[in-house]
């Protein structure tokens, strides 16, 4: 029994030693440092629209987190990325339906070609 305990301690020692080496390399090389515009750049949010739609319930084995979660790495682009330069203002909404933004309220409106995922 004590020999098994000794073996475990030796394995733990090897892991801790390797981890110490990796920490030294990371500190010296500083490879993960980057400019973090999400915290350090100046911006003013003018509007936020959100939808949260329940899709399904899942019973599953494996980890408790979603596969390929990327919310902790905002600097890594998603699988689909599109940037569109709109050189002209969006056309004003007709304004005949209740609730449709018009005039200056329509500035925050995203044109149809941009709205699809």
């Amino acid at each position: 029994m004590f020999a098994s305990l000794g073996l475990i301690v030796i394995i733990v020692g090897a892991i801790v030693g390797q981890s110490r080496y990796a920490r030294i390399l990371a500190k010296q090389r500083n490879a993960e440092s980057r400019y973090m515009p999400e915290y350090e750049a100046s911006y003013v949010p003018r509007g936020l629209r959100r939808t949260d739609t329940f899709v399904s319930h899942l019973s599953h084995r494996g980890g408790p987190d979603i596969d390929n979660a990327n919310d902790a790495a905002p600097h890594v682009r998603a699988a689909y990325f599109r940037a569109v330069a709109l050189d002209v203002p969006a056309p004003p909404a007709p304004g005949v339906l209740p609730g449709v933004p018009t005039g200056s309220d329509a500035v925050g409106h995203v044109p149809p070609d941009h709205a699809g995922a």
Partner: protein
Amino acid sequence: MTDITSTAPSNGVIRCTACGASETRPDGEWLVCAYCRHRWLPQRTDAPWQSDGDIGTLMGTEIHAGAAAGTGSRLVTLECSGCGAEVGINTDLNLHARCHWCRHELSLNAPVDNGAVPDAILPFAISREDAQARMWSYVASRWEFATAGFKADFATYPIAAVYLPYFIVDGNVTVRLDGQAWVQKGAFVRRDAPDLYETDIYAVMREADLEVDDLAIEARSTRSRLYSAVSTTNIINALQPFDVKNALPFDARYIGPDVNFEPRDTEVDTAMSTAAGLFATMARGYVAQTLTGYTGHTRWDAEQVAIRGTRWVSMLLPVWLYGYQESTPRGPMMHYIAVNGRTGEVQGSVPVDQGHAKAAGWKLGLAIAAFAIPCVLIDVVLFAASGLAAH
């Protein structure tokens, strides 16, 4: 894309506000008259990088003169034969230079196109002595595992003052993010099978309108590529932010005899995609506060950036730089230690003495493993005792 603004940067003579002499030298942000010693701060008014109230009305692409094409006369750019970098000098004050990246002596025989005269310059606020002290403080905590060659070089080699080119961008954008998120509802721990998790799946969409003010983007292509496996240019990137609101209209006199600059080689068209990526990053950071309920995290599958308007200004930003080339089995690798010339922030990469670092890891591992020896000895003694008892 429309070129809305064509205000040329000031290349005319700047005269002393006291005596009218045109011979001046910079002292930090200030200019000092060579004749009457009068000090004054150049005017900052009406500069495009200082306005932040009209970003919401930006439409189209507004490119200021320094961010468009053009050439400067007194500023000469030399190509380094060592690493290929392009280093600029002010020939009014300086006729020789050394590459601040790899330290090769530069030759006036290899001048290249100068690029455009920038719109603005942010003078150094951190002195050489202060920058050196900050670098020493940074390196001190990494000294133990630094290579011997680096230690000898760092102790003696002077640091360089460099102006690096950036685009300063204001943006009026809408960013839409689509993805999936999980909410953990619990887990069943099973004795002879893997744990079973219960999860609710949601389709999430976030759309944010952002008015971005003074986002800095590297305008030198070789510095904006971040391949950390083979280079340490991420160090330069991480030096931001700079207080660009305090920038002054460009004046070549700020590029003194001991100062180099790098010309811009990136155009607005190319940098636009980088800017769009950074806008998306900022939106991701902003909407993170709305995702705290998703305990199983979020996967963004699609990011779309609609850019209504941008304003582009080119600017030289101050950096104190120390460079050291390490020879590795995979080839040479440049390590940089850089100090933000305005805020004093230090970022750096120090070459590792691999043998020393591995030994430190082994020592700790062996120290822990040493606890195994008593365990084994106790087991041996117990085994022997049980053998004796059997006899």
